[in-house]
């Protein structure tokens, strides 16, 4: 793990934060959208024992950002990290988003699952962005974060909230399904809570749209060392999410 300086740790909502780290040029060059890093708090504590994995949300001019949601002790510790202090990082980990994306492309994010699409949009050419739409859902208006940032890419931004406080009222998957009656996408990449991903997989079966899912589970190493982060493959055996993923073709895995 290497030390990285915390430039800023901005609370966006009660539970969501935006952490900005300064990283060296070497790491900037090494990262591709879809990859992740693990972050440890470098104060020698053994609890939590393992650094936590986070997707790169943005990487511009040596500033790497992650969008995180507080769910347990690791992310609680992350929340109180102050600008000017250091965290330990190991990166880049995992495989980038697939190289052979066929456009038009829909990116579907539920909650902080939207994080990785920022970095992807940063790296897409303006031509490609014209053929891309971003679907972003959350439970309520205040949980739809970084909207100005996402708007800056000038892609169609389709929003949904469960309580209807902003955008479509309902799940983001409902909005997508509605749109699919009039719009056509050749590839969809989705990241979010497991029920959302299951629903998408189910509803897109037989549609001919290539569906990729960015998945998560508890990771000890993130490097392929422990063989712990497995998901069953449809063809038998297991994928190792940290090494083979985190983004996988939906039809190849059992959820």
């Amino acid at each position, binding site marked *: *793990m290497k030390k990285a300086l915390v430039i800023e740790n901005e609370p966006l909502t009660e539970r969501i934060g935006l952490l900005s780290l300064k990283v060296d040029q070497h790491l900037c060059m090494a990262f591709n959208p879809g990859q992740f890093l693990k972050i*440890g708090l470098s104060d020698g504590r*053994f*609890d*939590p*024992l*393992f*650094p936590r994995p986070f997707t790169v949300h943005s990487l511009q001019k040596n500033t790497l950002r992650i969008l995180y949601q507080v769910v347990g002790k690791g992310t609680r510790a992350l929340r109180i990290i102050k600008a000017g202090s250091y965290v*330990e990082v*190991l990166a880049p980990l995992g495989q980038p988003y697939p190289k052979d994306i066929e456009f038009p492309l829909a990116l579907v994010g539920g909650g902080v699952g939207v994080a990785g699409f920022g970095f992807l949009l940063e790296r897409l050419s303006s031509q490609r962005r014209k053929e891309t739409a971003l679907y972003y859902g959350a439970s309520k208006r205040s949980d739809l974060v970084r909207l100005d940032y996402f708007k800056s890419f000038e892609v169609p931004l389709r929003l949904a909230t469960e309580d209807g406080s902003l955008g479509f009222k309902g799940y983001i998957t409902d909005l997508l399904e509605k749109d699919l009656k009039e719009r056509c996408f050749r590839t969809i990449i989705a990241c979010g809570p497991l029920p959302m991903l299951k629903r998408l997989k189910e509803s897109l079966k037989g549609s001919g749209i290539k569906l990729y899912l960015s998945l998560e*589970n*508890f*990771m*000890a*190493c993130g*490097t*392929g*060392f*422990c*063989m*712990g*982060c*497995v*998901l*069953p493959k449809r063809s*038998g*055996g*297991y994928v190792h999410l940290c*090494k083979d993923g985190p983004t996988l073709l939906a039809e190849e895995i059992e959820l």
Partner: protein
Amino acid sequence: MTWKVGNLELKTPIIIASGTWGLGDTLLQYLTPQELTYAVGALVTKGLSLEPMSGNPPPRLMETPCGLINSIGLENPGIKTFLEDYYPRLRELKIPLIFNLHGNSEEEFIRLAEILREVGEEAIELNISCPNVKKGGISFSQSPEVVFELIRGVRKVFEGFIAVKLSPVGPVMETALACESAGADALTIANTYPALGIISYEPLRIIRGGLSGPAIKPLTLRLITEVSSRIKLPIIASGGVMSGKDVFDYLLMGASAVQIGTANLIDPWSPIKIYEEIKELLRSYGRLLDKGNT
């Protein structure tokens, strides 16, 4: 300086433990060969079986305070594929390799040892202590007589270095004595502690596995202290090493070398960091060790 574990000579007392560096294919993404040869005395392979094993269904991991419960279930491609696809690159590192072996029966262990003899490999670690498989594994550790026969059998076909990796639970002392009288070269003490964790209530998700990490170090340190006071076989310590101090503690209480496991999962550079720390401690306190290391 060389470190002796019986007839095995190591450049440093740091060994990377079985199952905590995968099959070796991703190790060099995180460490250079130079870093490895500088800090690491030996590498113990993932547990290898005669036939491929796909391992246990998820969940395979759960973090506990200062520890990790794992239930990997010895996922491995089988010894043949390992030797064909992974071994050639590892051999180039010129770091002694110790093959961690998993058999369901004495015959399988013997066959595995024969295969390694045929490729000219000289060091094995018999895993009779994995808590995560239905057959073999820890069940051997319940009966010292079976372990005695097992080692005698393997010894007949394998002249090289034989370490036996013990479970920390069960008749540990009796098993250690059986290893000694059957002609093993060293004991690895110990594997993980059988443990259970509850991941969620609804749906109820439970993991049964082995506990590792800093939480277990005081337990394994005590075990090693007791075994080393009664048994002459060299001991390789394994359990919760996170720092140079942990290594020194084990050396002081009778270990000849020390394995790093869970620490490797946290940070691939752990062996190098820990080696730097132990060098420093040896300068200050090395005189306290009476190990006959040169």
